[in-house]
């Protein structure tokens, strides 16, 4: 039963929290966008731009928290672009989102090559250090910020007038307009803030998990977050649970690789998280209630 003993070690649970952190930020970001009625497929590229800008700011000499802020602002800029094209212009959210992902990924690659034309090993920065707490709780402040983000998102969406307006704009924009609120402003705001959170998720990779920037480092995490939003049925708490489950599975397969690695090719273990996401989607999408106006552009005066 040595395979189950893994679950009892503090290092396993520490890894779970570490792996979950970037997913939690980005999943909350995507959830906010989708609750307001906008599918944001720019998530993968926005995480890349967050990973790059956060790292580059610190590499250029800024403090770590300024790196986080830089990533947040860069993500918000791309989110605003996504919002302007999909909300007032009403362009296809699929096309714009994928376009933003390609643009943001290319922009990060171009800027990296421009800044460091001839490096072969990616330069390192001094990342966030774990807090002096016992066992699995010894995490960097960014992980605690991720959990705080879930609490704030859940509170704002469920308990405040702003949250009510954001939810309503994803369900019935006509009703929001009738209340005298601006559908355009609410959706633009939600996409901008949500994209900022995605970028902070990306920055976690360079400022907390690793200490360098690699081209392929986001590696589909954005797409997994989109699956996690569906898995969480568009609720922050359940999405958090999904992210933790996913991270536990990921941390477990990494450890299984070490014990079973000789018998089973490592690619099988690496495939499992993606396969698990598809399976979770199949199980959950029958029960989940999608925001009614998701992917539907709103145009005043049209019904």
């Amino acid at each position: 039963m040595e395979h189950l003993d893994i679950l009892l070690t503090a290092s396993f649970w520490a890894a779970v929290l570490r792996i979950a952190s970037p997913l939690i930020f980005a999943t909350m970001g995507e959830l906010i966008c989708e609750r307001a009625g906008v599918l944001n497929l720019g998530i993968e590229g926005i995480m890349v731009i967050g990973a790059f800008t956060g790292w580059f700011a610190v590499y250029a000499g800024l403090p770590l928290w300024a790196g986080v802020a830089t990533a947040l602002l860069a993500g918000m800029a791309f989110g605003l672009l996504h919002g302007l094209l999909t909300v007032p212009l009403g362009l296809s959210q699929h096309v714009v989102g994928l376009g933003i992902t390609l643009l943001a990924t290319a922009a990060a690659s171009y800027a990296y090559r421009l800044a460091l034309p001839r490096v072969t090993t990616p330069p390192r920065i001094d990342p966030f250090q774990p807090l002096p707490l016992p066992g699995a709780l010894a995490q960097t402040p960014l992980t605690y910020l991720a959990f705080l983000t879930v609490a704030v998102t859940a509170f704002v969406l469920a308990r405040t007038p702003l949250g009510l307006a954001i939810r309503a704009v994803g369900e019935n924009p006509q009703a929001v307009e009738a209340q005298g609120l601006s559908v355009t402003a609410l959706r633009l705001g939600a996409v901008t803030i949500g994209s900022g959170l995605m970028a902070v998720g990306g920055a976690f990779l360079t400022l907390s998990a690793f200490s360098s920037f690699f081209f392929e480092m986001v590696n589909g995490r954005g797409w997994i977050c989109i699956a996690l939003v569906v898995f969480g049925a568009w609720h922050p708490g359940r999405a958090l649970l999904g992210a933790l489950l996913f991270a536990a599975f990921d941390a477990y397969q990494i450890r299984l690789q070490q014990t079973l690695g000789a018998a089973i090719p490592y690619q099988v273990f690496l495939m499992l998280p993606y396969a698990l996401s598809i399976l979770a989607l199949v199980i959950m999408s029958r029960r989940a209630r999608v925001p009614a106006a998701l992917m539907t552009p709103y145009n005043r005066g049209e019904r």
Partner: protein
Amino acid sequence: MRLEPIAAPTPARLLGLPLAALALTLAIGAALAALAGANPLAVFGLILKGAAGSRFALLETLNRATPLIFTGLAVAVAFRARLWNIGAEAQLYAGALTTVLLGTGAVAAPAPLLLPLLALTAFAAGAVLLLGPAFLKVRFGVDEVVTTLLLNFIMLLFVSMLLEGPLKDPLSLGWPQSPALVPDARLPRLVSGLRLHWGFALALAAALVTWAIMARTTLGFEMRAVGENPAAAAFAGMPVPRVLLRTAILSGGLAGLAGFSEVAGLKGNLTLDLSPGFGYTGIIVAMLAMLHPLGVVVAGVFVAGVFVGADSMSRAAGVPSYIADILVATALLTMVAALKLTRFRIRSG
């Protein structure tokens, strides 16, 4: 703010806005070149020269366009029926995989028999890979964007596993690559001595056939109807799930052909870097072509030219070749916005 439809757009609007989109794209490219310390005009000149400045350059561009035409067609067909196939990358590798499985000696047949067999199995492999997500969509309502995207990662790992395991070429000295195709499984060159192969002719034929299907057959009509308004199509008695599954076969199959063409025409074996994202670039190609199958050929050659030209410019001028990715992504976003604004104007209040 609201959008107001324009009943009869003026020619100035119809032409001017797309031209403005192009100008904006070029302006951003110029700014990026200047940021890299290069002369923007020289950079554009070098891109043009690298893409079409010589017979060699032009054929290289057509070569690069070949997989993009296939994946562009795959995306155009699917998006027309609003089946969001983002998995052309995986379907391409599925086609490439069957091509090396059957073409490295497993099937002994003369070229006129072997090549059609390889093409058909590649088509089938790509089709099967998209049928899964399409089935999950029509049966369980699972969003196909996420499933097709995640399958890209699964497929690449699967290919990697095979290339390091049963499919590994024993003579490759540790490098993960498949054995080479037998000579009869290779597509001949269109122009002897230069790299352009018959895959390009196959891509043109595929574009014509796809156009004929979309414009002239019942299936094409049903696909367009389902894409325009699935509820109305179902109300009119169309079997929407079946139309979507057939769309998936055509779309996945076209992407599978891209893998066949790259392996049998260009590379001769399978490696993990067979496609530098042709499946994703196909989305840009399809959108720039406004989902028109013949437009895909033009857009595919254009996008390929930007990439080939930027590669050669990068070697000469030292501007990172990622400028090509930024240019095509910007062209995509500005063009869809411009095309929308030819039909609508923004009114405040």
